[in-house]
């Protein structure tokens, strides 16, 4: 079973790129939540989350982004989701989140959404 990994990288324009790998579920969501909350606490509200290597997401995982997007937007930021795998995109579609979150195919495309 693939483990759960999160890597963050600072980009220009106060954007942080977050690469998420593995399974985001009721067991791992707190790690994702902590990563985002730590960024918010440090004044970063522009997040690009790369989901291309995320194998699976449950409602607990999606709930992290649901709970955070409002705070990001209230602070002139946003949470842009990048390249979700078909399984992960299916869950966002089922929950009706694909109309709420902005999606991008690459970092440049995501960065333009903050312009």
């Amino acid at each position: 079973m693939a483990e759960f990994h999160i890597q963050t990288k600072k980009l220009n324009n106060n954007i942080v790129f977050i690469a998420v790998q593995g399974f985001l579920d009721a067991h791992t969501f707190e790690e994702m939540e902590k990563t985002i909350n730590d960024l918010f606490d440090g004044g970063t509200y522009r997040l690009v989350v790369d989901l291309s290597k995320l194998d699976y997401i449950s409602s607990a995982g999606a709930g992290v982004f649901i709970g955070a997007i409002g705070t990001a937007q209230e602070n002139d930021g946003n949470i842009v989701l990048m390249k979700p795998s078909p399984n992960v995109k299916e869950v966002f579609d089922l929950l009706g989140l694909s109309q709420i979150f902005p999606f991008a195919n690459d970092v440049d495309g995501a960065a333009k959404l903050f312009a």
Partner: protein
Amino acid sequence: MGEVHDRIVITNDTKFLGFVREFTSRMIRQSSLSREDENKIILAVDEAVANIIEHAYENQREGTIDVECQADAQKFVVTIRDSGQQFAPEGVEAPNIEGHVKAKKKKGLGIYLMRLIMDEVRYTFREGIQNELVLVKYIGGKPKTPQA
């Protein structure tokens, strides 16, 4: 029932959710269910078990959760049993997702997903004995109820 039948028992710890998903995946692949349904049904079972882990056993009391899969040519049935406290999904309303986002509400979507994905969700509670949650997915679509 027949063709596919197996069960696993886990303790109420989210670290075993991956094990539940792998088991469900293996059962689905042995059944006649479409591979297109695999991710969704794994999700429904994951949500059901995660919900029991969160709600059924108070004060972090250790308990077990039994997950049984049975399938034949008509349907794929998952029966989940625990002996924790009652939590009836019937009482949970469908969420307004925009309201969730606005209220920054992170939880309360699992039962909605379970109902959305499965053709039947049945819950039986026998106090002090066992809770039983049955999730059914019909293969090739839900059969029409015979007309009287």
